[in-house]
């Protein structure tokens, strides 16, 4: 068997043979493309831990929907989404209207939401793990989830392209934007909405670990390769897509669980970037110390 055939067998064949592999790949692709820029912006705004917070913020909405409508996937997903939007929105509002920082207000509101959710579930007395319904796994992506996540990704990319400039300025010099009008607040709200949408969609299709992992790890790794916002986002998206593809193959060939494989691969990209990335990595710093230009 020639090398080419072997490569094809290893890297392409699993996707040809199995529909679930194809779907998983497309889901990773969609999520990676939209989470690249969003994750980058989160890192730049020092909101890196927000993803996990939002995963917990879903709970009261899902719990309430469960109480009202029973075990309906649709009701619980929408309930969870509404709760997450409320938490994100309130946190953003508080950060804007008071001197409190966004990471602190986020922490406050997500904890309140989480406790409320646990309370609702306990009062109802059912120990069924609600969240298992809300969080999917990458290998079980069905048509509905795939459409949802692809739709969200397309929407996100479109919206981000449109509001890219005000979003960036809002991070960099919020006073400037405020001075020109109140658009900054709307842009920020829009960003939070996109964030929650991507996360909730990601949770539903792929589970928390993967959604947050693919959002944050590539973005943190990109920092060691690119300098400007748009190139950071592009590198992050690339890392996310590669992690998805490679992780699925790892899971397939080495019989490892899929979600952790993908995220750990993204993590190893991060470690590699940290060590030998082009910009400001440990290696780059060592090298730059050795030689310098004349001016």
């Amino acid at each position, binding site marked *: 068997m020639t090398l080419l055939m072997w490569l094809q067998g290893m890297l392409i064949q699993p996707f040809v043979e199995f529909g*679930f592999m194809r779907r998983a790949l497309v889901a990773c692709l969609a999520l990676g493309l939209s989470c690249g820029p969003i994750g980058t912006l989160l890192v730049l705004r020092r909101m890196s831990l927000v993803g996990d917070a939002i995963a917990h913020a879903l709970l009261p909405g899902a719990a309430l929907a469960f109480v009202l409508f029973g075990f309906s996937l649709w009701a619980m997903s929408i309930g969870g989404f509404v709760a997450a939007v409320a938490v994100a929105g309130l946190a953003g509002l508080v950060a804007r209207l008071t001197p409190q920082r966004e990471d602190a207000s986020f922490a406050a509101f997500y904890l309140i939401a989480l406790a409320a959710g646990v309370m609702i579930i306990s009062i109802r007395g059912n*120990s069924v793990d609600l969240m*298992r319904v809300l969080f999917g796994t990458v*290998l079980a992506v069905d048509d509905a989830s795939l459409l949802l996540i692809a739709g969200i990704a397309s929407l996100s990319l479109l919206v981000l392209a449109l509001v890219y400039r005000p979003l960036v300025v809002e991070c960099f010099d919020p006073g400037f934007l405020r001075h020109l009008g109140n658009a900054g607040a709307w842009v920020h709200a829009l960003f939070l909405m996109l964030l929650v949408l991507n996360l909730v969609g990601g949770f539903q299709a792929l589970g928390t670990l993967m959604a947050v992992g693919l959002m944050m790890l590539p973005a943190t790794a990109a920092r060691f390769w690119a300098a400007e916002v748009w190139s950071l986002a592009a590198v992050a998206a690339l890392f996310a897509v590669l992690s998805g593809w490679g992780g699925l193959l790892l899971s397939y060939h*080495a019989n490892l669980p*899929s*979600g*952790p494989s993908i995220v750990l691969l993204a993590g190893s990209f991060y470690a590699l970037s940290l060590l030998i990335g082009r910009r400001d990595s440990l290696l780059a710093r060592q090298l730059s110390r050795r030689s310098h230009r004349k001016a």
Partner: protein
Amino acid sequence: MMQFDSTPRALRRAFLTLLASAGTARWSVAPAAQTPPPVLKVVATFSVLADIAREVGGTAVEVTALVGPNADAHVFEPTPSDVRRVASADVVVTNGLRYEGWIDRLIKASGFRGPVVVASQGVVTRGVSGGADPHAWQSLANGQRYAENIRAVLVAALSARAPARVAEVEARAAAYQQRLAALDRDTRERFAALPAERRRVITAHDAFGYFSDAYGVVFIAPRGWTTGSEPSAKAVAAIVRQARASKASALLVENISDPRLIERIGRESGLKVGGALYSDALSPVGTEADTYVRMFEHNVKTLVDAMSLNVPGASGDAGAVPR
């Protein structure tokens, strides 16, 4: 005081009570007469046992289950109110065979000193890796054993407190045994009527060992798969290949596991995705599997339907999981 779970059941119980009274030559004044209050408080570990206890004990008992319908006894975590319930119980019914890992601690914590029924006592067990398979109730013959064990303890407890009610319980137990026996015969006939090669299904949870032995159905379990862990792509691919090659009739979903993955495999392998099988818990009151007998009937019907239909390929709308 009667338990008003749902009107049809209440009516049925009223009717049975009347029959029982007639059997002992005591006539109630009128159908609308007051039914005698329950004597024993029975706490069962999970819904199947609770239902059997209710059927056997009738109005003489007030039964609650610690792990209710659609809940998973494997991940149950007792709350303070559960401890209180056990403490104030007269009889505790457990499955045994190490099904409820938490029950011993719970009984100890509550200080309960009364009789504990091990419903599976006397059952011929089948072995699985790590000990005996605890899901003995999946065979109706064992179900009869369960009912008998429960009857014995209930009667013993009643004899001490309200000997007048013993006859009623004995009669109910006898009727129930007949019912289970008839269902058992019926089930065997139905499966025997199907050709052997159709009696193969794939389902994720390996709780139907006793069922398989009793009625000749082959349950193909995906290897190395439990409800808790996340599968690898290799495992899923293997199952799809296995499903394609196994010539199983259908893919069936269980009520306590993630059905989405099962659906995906069904679509991929072209197997019919059948309805839910109930194994570890009954469904909520008023739904299709809210008693032990109905659960059994539902499982049998689902299996027979899945096996009989000769629809290759499309999984159809049967993929919806009844919730």
